[in-house]
């Protein structure tokens, strides 16, 4: 394993120290329990938005704390859900009296830890809404399993709900918006390589030089299927078609395309993927009105990409364009 780290046990702590040195104008970093809140938290009268999850997905979530997006993020150990005490402290720190929204990715650990935190926060008199993101079409949806994973749509939901909260929409409105975004967003990902959890020291899975995994999540876990590596255009089709069919997106729909690097895939390749994704969207009569291209929800240094499609309407377009000022996403401010 070659990584730019010191002791594997200290990766998250040292990363947080780096963030605290870099962005004191945007965020405050707390330790034991670990959480990041926007510098001006709590914003009185504004719904607070808290998210969190395992580390290793940077910039998500810590990099999305700031004006127009998250009020707080709780980083767990690498690929491990954070704990209820982190979430509780973060929730209290950003409660400006208008309630707090928990945006939770659909993993058993995240769900259970956030559930416990919400119970504790409610016991302290804070209004809590929790919305679960489960947008991964690679996973068969079923009432009798853990259901779909939360992946790329999480990034979009955090941006859009952040903008809505900034407009002083109510907790109910922001939570409903989050559910709408989750309902309108679909994702699928693939990996060319595995990744190495620092304290494990070896790749989570082995992938021969000529094979890839299709239908991966964001925790270095293997995907639904392993197969020979294909061309960028073929891979884009294998990701786009199940997405488009799943909602189903209809000819004439406006969409946002989000092409995401899993960490190790460089920008030049993302644009090659975006090119084909755009053409496929057009072929289906979808109007691509917004986009996001880059490493936003990653799995450490994994090479690969994911594609997310989100159906857009005028409200979502307005919220997407609203100013955002965080370490990891910034425009208009």
């Amino acid at each position, binding site marked *: 394993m070659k990584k730019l780290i010191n002791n594997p046990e200290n990766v998250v702590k040292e990363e947080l120290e780096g963030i605290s040195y870099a962005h004191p104008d945007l965020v405050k970093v707390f330790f034991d329990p670990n959480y990041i809140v926007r510098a001006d938290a709590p914003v009185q009268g504004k719904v607070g938005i808290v998210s969190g999850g395992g580390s290793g997905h940077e910039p998500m979530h810590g990099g999305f704390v700031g004006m127009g997006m998250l009020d707080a993020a709780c980083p767990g150990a690498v690929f*491990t859900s954070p*704990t209820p005490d982190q979430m509780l402290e973060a929730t209290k720190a950003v409660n400006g009296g208008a309630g707090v929204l928990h945006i939770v990715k659909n*993993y058993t*650990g995240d769900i259970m*830890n956030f559930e416990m935190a919400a119970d504790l926060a409610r016991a302290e008199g804070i209004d809590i809404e929790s919305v679960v993101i489960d947008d991964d079409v690679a996973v068969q949806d079923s009432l009798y399993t*853990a259901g779909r994973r939360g992946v790329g749509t999480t990034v979009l939901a955090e941006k859009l709900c952040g903008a809505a909260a900034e407009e002083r929409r109510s907790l109910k409105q922001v939570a409903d918006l989050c559910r709408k975004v989750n309902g309108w967003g679909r994702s699928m990902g693939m990996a060319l390589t595995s990744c190495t959890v620092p304290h494990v020291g070896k790749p*989570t899975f082995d992938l021969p030089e000529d094979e890839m995994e299709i239908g991966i999540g964001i925790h270095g876990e293997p995907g*639904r299927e392993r197969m020979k590596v294909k061309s960028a255009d073929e891979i884009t089709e294998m990701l786009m078609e199940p997405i488009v069919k799943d909602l189903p997106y209809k000819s004439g729909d406006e969409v946002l395309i989000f092409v995401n690097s899993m960490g190790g895939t460089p920008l030049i390749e993302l644009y090659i993927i975006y090119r084909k994704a755009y053409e496929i969207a057009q072929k289906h009569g979808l109007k691509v009105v917004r986009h996001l291209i880059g490493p936003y929800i990653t799995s450490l240094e994994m090479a690969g990409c994911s594609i997310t499609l989100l159906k857009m309407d005028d409200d979502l377009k307005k919220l997407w364009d609203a100013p955002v000022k965080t370490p990891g996403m910034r425009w208009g401010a």
Partner: protein
Amino acid sequence: MTISRDDVLMWIKNYAGVIRENKEYLTDLDAAIGDADHGANMDRGFQAVLGKMPELADKDIGTIFKTVGMTLLSTVGGAGGPLYGTLFLQAGMKTAGKMELSLEDLVTTFEAAISGVVMRGKAEVGDKTMIDALTPALEALKKASEENQPIAEALAAFAEAGKKGMESTTPLVAKKGRASYLGARSAGHQDPGATSSYLLLRTAADTWGDA
């Protein structure tokens, strides 16, 4: 024959050692069908628990279990944290103020503890989770208690049933937890959580076998 406060502390301490020894094994199991952190998570939690030992030296069993539960809850994270945290918190509720446990106490305690895990995780036997080890183990313990077996034999049956339960997870297709995302690919691998649960029961039997 009963389990003393000290026996309980010894169980926890021994289990922390067992987890340390099996850290890589549990992580390897999790790498196959999960995200390669179960060993590290459990080890982080039980090392933190070890750090709490001094302040538990003179506490009752309920306080011991509650402290273990709270510590796991705030240090393990992932699915394991709330599940094992709940297990010990529920055990702590049942044993509040107690300084020793009879076999019947053990049954009611594990019953409460394991029901807590079921309530939290909503898994059933056959979903390829911890529950596959815990539930049959509890049944075996109940049966032994009803049959008035000696505590050592009851615990041996308890661990043995847990082992079978753990092994039963191998062919299963996961329905709960992270492994369920793999669909059919999850079959053929033993569940990491069932394994750490079996080790917990096995350590109880080993620690208390001559109680």
